[in-house]
């Protein structure tokens, strides 16, 4: 079994109020390291055996059609060992 990870993030130009809220909560807890926080989604997709190139190509299509909204989001696909 392997895991294909799809990370979905809002495009840089799209306002991320959730990330902003997290960024402003950090200093309240005494953490001063963050200049900005962006919040995204991570999908862990389990497949039988090693993912094939064809499977990865299908995941790309699924990520574009369903897992992300290309109008406001970017995504990356990778295999996690």
């Amino acid at each position, binding site marked *: 079994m392997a895991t294909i990870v799809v990370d979905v993030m*809002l495009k840089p*130009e*799209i*306002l991320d*109020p*959730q990330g902003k*809220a997290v960024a402003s909560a950090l200093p309240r807890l005494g953490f001063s390291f963050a200049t900005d926080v962006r919040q995204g989604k991570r999908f862990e997709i389990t497949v039988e055996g090693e993912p094939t190139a064809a499977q990865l190509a299908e995941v790309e299509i699924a990520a574009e059609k*369903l*897992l992300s*909204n290309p*109008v*406001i989001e970017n995504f990356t696909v990778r295999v996690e060992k």
Partner: protein
Amino acid sequence: MKIGVVTFPGTLDDRDAARAVRYAGSEAIELWHDDADLKGVDAVILPGGFSYGDYLRCGAISRFSPVMEPLIAAAKGGMPLLGICNGFQVLAEAHLIPGALTRNQHLHFLCTDQKIRIENNTTAWTSSFSEGQELVIPLKNGEGSYQCDDETLKMLEGEGRIIARYVGENPNGSRNLIAGISNERGNIVGLMPHPEHAVDALTGPGTDGLGFFTSVLKTMVSGGMK
């Protein structure tokens, strides 16, 4: 005139939408998300709520419901289609209208009687209003902030496709105070506030919302959107 009202799992406002349709003098036809048949309706409303629990993104899963396939084809052919709130999100996810609805800028769910101004009274769903007419109808959403890129915004402004704008303070962070937009032809309209909750003085802030439902009747009687 038969107007279909789609119910997805998690839809809330289908009954109010059907009631508004009847108040305006049309027949409301119930459409179920799992039916790939539009039952011969002349127009369709995608009502508000939390279809599929708003999982993934609002409207992202509903957009692939069986009913959406004939609906998208019919709407592309000119059939009037109104998406209210969650319905607006479904239209955006289906790419029937440009842009996307994102989390309110202030992150809070809001529920208020909102003043809006009709900016374009030539669409299938706004022809009963006068241009510049101000209405008060309920606005209730968590993800109602309309976002699009600069080029799209310029195109919407230039083509008069912003059909309604919020009046006063921006309630949710929508670009250019956008409350509703249409497709190029004007038969498809997405609207964040809820006209179906403002059709009876007993249960709403007034009857300002009724005009959206009488508009489509008028449009259909006069031969639809060219």
